[in-house]
């Protein structure tokens, strides 16, 4: 992993690992604040409630720092990237059939040029293109769920769940149609019936329940 082995191929920041490094460091900071502000009752016996979290905090700083350095040094671009089925989840990189969308293509090309490699790195470019994130969609989904959390108690399950389902299908690329809305209502009502009615789970009825 030293610069000498990378040769002429330049490194770029590993944008996939960077956020995780920041999350871990953020966790470490939050733990530190919590440790400092913690009010330990005088009756607490040794070793006390701080010891275990202190260990975690130290580990978090170390792991976060190493991950950050690794992410900033980045992955080397080059054809020798070992391909291995992703171990933790579920999707192996899907083969791209048909013309890839222009957005990816351009980014890949730019990356390839920036990395100073052309032909042999095609696989690597493709791999990094599949890591491109459509942030607007993610933000849209996040917004939908936040709105759902806010309106759930005042509006009740049926209306908020219908809205959420409809919103998510549209956010994921379905055309907004009346049929989709119908499916949304049926599903939301069905869940309410089965889970609240048959299994006795608590779901909010909202103002509709008061009518």
């Amino acid at each position, binding site marked *: 992993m030293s610069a000498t082995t990378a040769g002429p191929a330049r490194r770029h920041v590993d944008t996939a690992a960077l956020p995780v490094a920041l999350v871990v460091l953020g966790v470490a900071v939050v733990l530190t604040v919590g440790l400092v502000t913690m009010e330990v009752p005088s009756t607490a016996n*040794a070793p006390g*409630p701080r010891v275990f979290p202190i260990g975690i905090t130290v580990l978090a700083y170390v792991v976060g720092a190493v991950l950050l350095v690794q992410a900033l040094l980045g992955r080397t671009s080059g054809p020798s990237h070992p391909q291995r089925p992703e171990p933790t989840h579920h999707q192996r990189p899907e083969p791209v059939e048909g013309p890839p969308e222009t957005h990816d293509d351009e980014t890949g090309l730019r990356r390839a040029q920036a990395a100073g490699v052309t032909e042999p790195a095609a696989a690597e470019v493709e791999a990094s293109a599949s890591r491109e994130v459509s942030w607007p969609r993610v933000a849209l989904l996040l917004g939908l769920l936040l709105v759902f959390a806010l309106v759930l108690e005042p509006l009740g399950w049926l209306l908020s769940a219908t809205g959420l389902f409809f919103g998510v299908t549209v956010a994921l690329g379905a055309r907004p149609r009346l049929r989709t809305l119908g499916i949304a209502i049926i599903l939301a009502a069905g869940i309410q019936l089965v889970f609240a009615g048959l299994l006795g789970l608590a779901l909010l009825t909202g103002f509709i329940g008061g009518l």
Partner: protein
Amino acid sequence: MDVLASLADGFATAFSPINLLWVVVGALLGTAVGVLPGLGSAMAVALLLPVTYSLDPTGAFIMFAGIYYGGLFGDSISAILLNTPGNSSAIASTFEGHKMALTGRAPQALATAALGAFTGGLLATVLVAFLAPSMAVLATYFGPAEFFALALFAFVATSAVVADSLVKGLASLVIGLAVAVVGIETQSGTSRFTFGVPDFLDGIDVVVVTVGLLALGEVFHRASLAHRPEAETLIRSGGRPFLSRGELRKALPAWLRGTAFGLPFGVIPVGGSEIPTFLAYGNERRIDRRSRKPEFGQGAIRGLAAPEAAGNATSGTAMGALLTLGLPTSATAAIMLAAFQQFGLQPGPLLFERDSELAWALIASLFVGLVVLLVLNLPFAPLWAKLLLIPRPFLYAGITLFCVMGVYSSSGSVVDVVLLLAFGLLGMLMRRADVPVAPVLIAVILGPLAETELTRTLTISEGDPSALVASPISIALYAVLALTLVITAVNRIRTRRSIDA
């Protein structure tokens, strides 16, 4: 004969009509969730956990037995027909399984998987039934220091083995541990890291973490690449869903060999059945290379049979480790442990004394669950595959709905829904960075146990840390941990080489 008598009692409980119904419902729901692309057996248990709250503990665990095996089989269906394993444990099945499906042998591939899962699960459950009592007795020799060693074992082994880099595994672990220390500390009553939010006093619910990281994380992940063209094609799977004599002759030894690989890994906390399935696959491939007509690469039935049996054997003995030691060895088992805790039960040596009726009913329903699955899946696997035809936006919107429903109905708190969101986003980030999720779950569930046992050990020894390595059992555990790390490092290198391109 004690075992047989207890087991008979267990079967008597499991065979009551209502409990049989719960097994069937569990198997159906579990398979349904497992089939869904990106969702595996761990997710099936987490997502369906709230559904069981309204049942009595026995009914709930009997249902879990169905969900557990159902989810595993669902993983295999999507692995074979769609080439997308729902869990890391089904990756090895995709290599030959999907090729079998591509060459028009999809129903036989599904039957091979179902029968393999049955064989592995059956042998493992028999082993668990007969060894559980002595395991439980052994576990009574464990004191605080030994349990701390076990928890540490689970932490280190899971993060080192599952991730492709140790740092990423530890990153996942540390996030989980941080989540675990939120809330009131039990020994002194100190409220920790709650930052004034009363909802945090009870800690962060593991269901929120699991559903967020796994299910909602998958939805976020999908959304982030939603502009990509769909490259998946579902393979039709009509035809004879049973095996010819020739196929059976090839598959049977592979099932047995796979089971042999799978059994020991259930009790070693290395994060589930990814390793034994790859070992079993690699072994079959070596055998195949020596034969006159090598079949690997063209859909070899043995290449599917062995990992399937190995995966289910591991899951079976993992259940044994969970019941007798209280130690989850995979993400799925970790969530099962959370389920026990929700019902106020603590798996471990005392479970067989205090709630022996429930423990034996659970073991018996594992058997029943296996049979039910075989009956449900051998003929109906192609029907399950129809679930994969749901258009993706609808599928993921539905999953989202189930996520928020599950989380909200189990706590009734909007704070949990917001937390769910945060974990969903985190799940997506982790997925992009190839950071495994299993260590988070293990850490959230075993974190409090590790801290309590550490505190106890240090209180007894009056602060002397050498008490942690004072007993032969804990020394042995640390030695096995070191050995496991070495072996898995070697095996990973081997496994990496043995995958057919």
